[in-house]
């Protein structure tokens, strides 16, 4: 499998604080990688540093084998689509126009057709002409997800794509991202719900205090030891018919 995203010993600072230290990871096509960790652990910093949104003070990040420095903005956009955590939208544009913003490489008509297609895929076809500020948070999240899909990038990175969504919308979002992975994309998501992460991700990366402290299949990465030491939880993953569920109490 070819590596879509490689971080090698990446260290990044924000002001004087080191927010990420010696982080290394590889994401390949077809897998869904979950990034979990307590609040402020460095999940978003990991994504931002790996995308060049945060300057690196050491280490190297590559997209499809090419370093960030050698990629022009348009070339980089062909390799990765990014859904930031901040879901504020400044103006009340119709959903189809928001979704079309994912396809900067296409002419207007083609971008609009793709936008409608992506809105249909996230189950928001009927919202196409509604203004995004007139929508509920869940509806807007779906429109922004359609924008991410419209990038058609081989690597999709979503920072907290399910924050603030109801359970159905959370499952729908992750199922959609899983479907993209099944079609060959590499997907990286940060999540707070460990049960949801275990259920939806092929591999989990646990971040704590700016370091990657565990990595592997959900059951390994979210071991009793990690749950206790990183999340201060006394618990474990239990297999159920609907997938793994986290049973835990505060340690």
């Amino acid at each position, binding site marked *: 499998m070819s590596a879509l995203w490689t971080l090698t010993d990446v260290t990044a600072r924000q002001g004087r604080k080191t927010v990420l230290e010696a982080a290394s990871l590889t994401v390949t096509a077809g897998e869904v990688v979950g990034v979990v960790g307590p609040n402020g652990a460095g999940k978003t910093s990991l994504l*931002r540093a790996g*995308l060049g*949104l945060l300057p690196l003070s050491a280490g190297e990040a590559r997209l499809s084998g090419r370093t960030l420095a050698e990629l*022009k*903005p*348009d070339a*980089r*956009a*062909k390799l*990765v*689509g*990014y*859904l*930031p955590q*901040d879901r*504020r*939208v*400044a*103006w*009340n*544009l*119709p959903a189809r*126009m*928001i979704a079309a*913003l*994912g396809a*900067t*490489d296409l002419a207007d008509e083609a971008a609009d057709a793709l936008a409608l297609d992506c809105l249909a895929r996230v189950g928001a076809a009927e919202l196409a002409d509604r*203004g995004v*500020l007139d929508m509920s948070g869940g509806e807007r999240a779906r429109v*922004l997800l359609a*924008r991410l899909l419209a990038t058609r990038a081989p690597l999709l990175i979503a920072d907290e794509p399910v924050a603030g969504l109801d359970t159905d919308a959370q499952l729908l979002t992750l199922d959609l991202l899983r479907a993209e992975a099944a079609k060959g994309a590499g997907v990286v998501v940060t999540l707070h719900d460990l049960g949801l992460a275990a259920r939806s991700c092929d591999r989990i990366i646990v971040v704590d205090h700016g370091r990657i402290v565990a990595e592997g299949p959900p059951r390994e990465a979210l071991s009793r030891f990690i749950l206790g030491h990183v999340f201060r939880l006394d618990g474990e993953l239990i297999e159920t018919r609907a997938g793994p569920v986290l049973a835990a109490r505060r340690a």
Partner: protein
Amino acid sequence: MSLVRLCLLMLLVLTLAAVLAVSLGETPFSLAQYAQALSHPASPPGEVLWTIRAPRVAVAALVGAALGLSGATMQGLLRNPLADPGVLGVSAVSGLGAAVAISAGLAVLPGAIELSALAGALVAGAMVVVLAARFREPEALILFGVALSAFGGALTALVFNLSPSPVATAEILAWLMGSVENRDWHDALRALVPMAIGAALCVRAGRGLRMLTLGEEAARMSGLPMARLRVYAVAGSALLTGAGVAAAGVIGFVGLAAPHLVRALVKDDPKRILWPSALAGALLLVLADLAARLIPTEQELKLGVVTALFGAPAFALLAWRASRSWRS
């Protein structure tokens, strides 16, 4: 409504307003005199229409268009419906440039005040371009703009303070109030060059302004050359504002209000709003200047006074309506 159709419609309304503004004035004409003005431009009524009123209306339209486009660009760049051409401090420093030229006695040289005002705008614009590259968040840029505005205002006050003659002081004050009185075709042509460059830059930045709807980080990852487009937006807006201040002094509220007049017609789109905002600004200023001429006062009202008098209550209304629709 398609963008082209909207622009054509607005252009038609603007043309009608311009015809009205050229036709009406302090000196009322009979039908025969209008006919004479049309058939013999060199006749006395022709002189009034074509060498006094028409260039004045043209300068008002150009300045209004520049301010409207500049305001729409700033609102898009800063993602803030209350941004205006002066928000980054360009107007204040441009006004300072004019004040310095007047107090230095350069008013006798044709075009010196205008050049000095434009130079002030370019200095401020260059500073803001550098800051905009360094600080991407709109809040930071707005704060720098506030500081630059205050500093420009303070230096202008200092020029007043140290001004040797009351005549110069009165002249600066009159100039800062904004007016298109006694402008000729040369003034219109002089304004046109920087405005055309500024407009081209702003329009090229349009795609970036639309992308900024999603916020700074999504825009940076979108594949658009955002660093360059931001420079276009800031530099274009500074040129438009500076050329506007150079041609007519400091005129408030037009740049703020014009985009809001057309916002609903373009579905809030920061890219498609650019040209209609320019046309709306031109329309507003042509009508404001007509009002300034027709309102019977002992001294002719200054254009900046008229726009502020009508603009400030409109601004309050706007803020009220915006506050009702503010959402997270």
